[in-house]
């Protein structure tokens, strides 16, 4: 057997291994826009999961228990939301519809996110998968950081030249121009439909750094229980006018809850809209102010040390440029 044939055989066997796990449902993950275009706090991303049975057909019954974890702290510098790093961002259970579950999410920081998914049926847990997703930082932020660093270096260099005494007889020829420009409780309204059903939306006191319980439910109709409804739940960051989380037309049995981590200390709107067959749409809305938490000084030290070090290097270069003999 030639080497080429052996390698080909090995490839076929390796490809067939997942299929050999007979009876185990498969979970597939897709995101839109693609990973290359994802940026923190930019555009919401549509995340979708597909569960297929062993025969390749989408499963008809079951739920997905989804947990989204933020990138772990890594490297010398932190991101601009250090309290979010390494935390649980989302924990929820979505029912499958034609084998699919879909939601929209706005990633808050750069780094590698982990999505753990459990496929659960009435008989218990059937399959588990973990997916990862890399979100890169905005290019213009790196450019801005570069410009700011250069400005600090230039200021250090100018100071280094000024502080260095010129040699006798030499004329000071210094024109420096520095330009630093710095650009820089909730009320609730509920109940549109007053005929038979009304909605209730509860959001616990939200603080950056820990997940908050978001709970929605329909009122019971004279002891008849809660009806099935197609729930559309949207969380909007009001200052940035961006949707940070959404699920659309999710079929639920009159109630839905999840743990959601509000990553920015700002004002948000949570809007739940439920379509109940044969009834008017029930709309429930809640505004909340998320308590921001200032990061610890230790998280700021790397960036501040870096900036001061750049100025110090500038000072050294400025002194050297003044002392260096001409020509």
């Amino acid at each position: 057997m030639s080497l080429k044939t052996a390698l080909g055989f090995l490839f076929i066997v390796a490809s067939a291994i997942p299929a050999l796990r007979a009876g185990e449902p498969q979970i597939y993950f897709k995101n839109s826009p693609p990973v290359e275009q994802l940026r923190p706090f930019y555009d919401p991303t549509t995340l979708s999961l597909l569960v297929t049975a062993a025969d390749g057909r989408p499963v008809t019954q079951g739920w997905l228990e989804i947990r989204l974890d933020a990138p772990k702290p890594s490297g010398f510098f932190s991101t601009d939301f250090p309290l979010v790093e390494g935390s649980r961002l989302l924990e929820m259970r979505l029912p499958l519809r034609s084998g699919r579950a879909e939601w929209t999410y706005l990633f808050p920081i750069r780094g590698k996110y982990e999505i753990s998914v459990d496929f659960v049926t009435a008989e218990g847990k059937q399959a588990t998968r973990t997916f990862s997703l890399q979100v890169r930082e905005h290019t213009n932020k790196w450019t801005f950081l570069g410009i700011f660093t250069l400005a600090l270096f230039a200021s250090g260099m100018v100071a280094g030249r000024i502080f260095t005494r010129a040699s006798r007889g030499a004329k000071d020829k210094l024109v420096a121009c520095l330009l630093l420009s710095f650009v820089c409780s909730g009320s609730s309204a509920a109940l549109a439909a007053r005929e038979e059903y009304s909605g209730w939306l509860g959001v616990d006191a939200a603080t950056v750094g820990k997940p908050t319980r978001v709970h929605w439910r329909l009122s019971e109709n004279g002891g008849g229980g809660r009806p099935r409804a197609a729930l559309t739940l949207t969380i909007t960051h009001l200052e940035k006018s961006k949707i940070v989380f959404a699920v659309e037309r999710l079929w639920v049995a009159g109630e839905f809850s999840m743990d959601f981590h509000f990553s920015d200390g700002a004002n948000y709107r949570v809007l739940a809209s439920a379509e109940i067959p044969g009834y008017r749409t029930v709309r429930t809305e809640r505004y909340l102010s998320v308590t921001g938490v200032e990061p610890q000084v230790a998280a700021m030290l790397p960036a501040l040390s870096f900036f001061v070090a750049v100025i110090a290097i500038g000072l050294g270069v400025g002194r050297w440029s003044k002392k260096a003999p001409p020509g």
Partner: protein
Amino acid sequence: MEKTLARGCGVALPEQVSFLIKSGSFLTACAAILYVLLAADYPAVHDTLHNFRHGLAIVPCH
């Protein structure tokens, strides 16, 4: 100012020592200014420079 002091006190510091003192003072002042601009939580400063802090990508905010 350095020349006035030297004349008044009758002593002149060596050039290297003078540079070290001036550089040290300058770096301390820069560190204090950077701390106020980028790290302090005084509402007026923080609110004005909030977007600037986030724009730098490596400066923690909330």
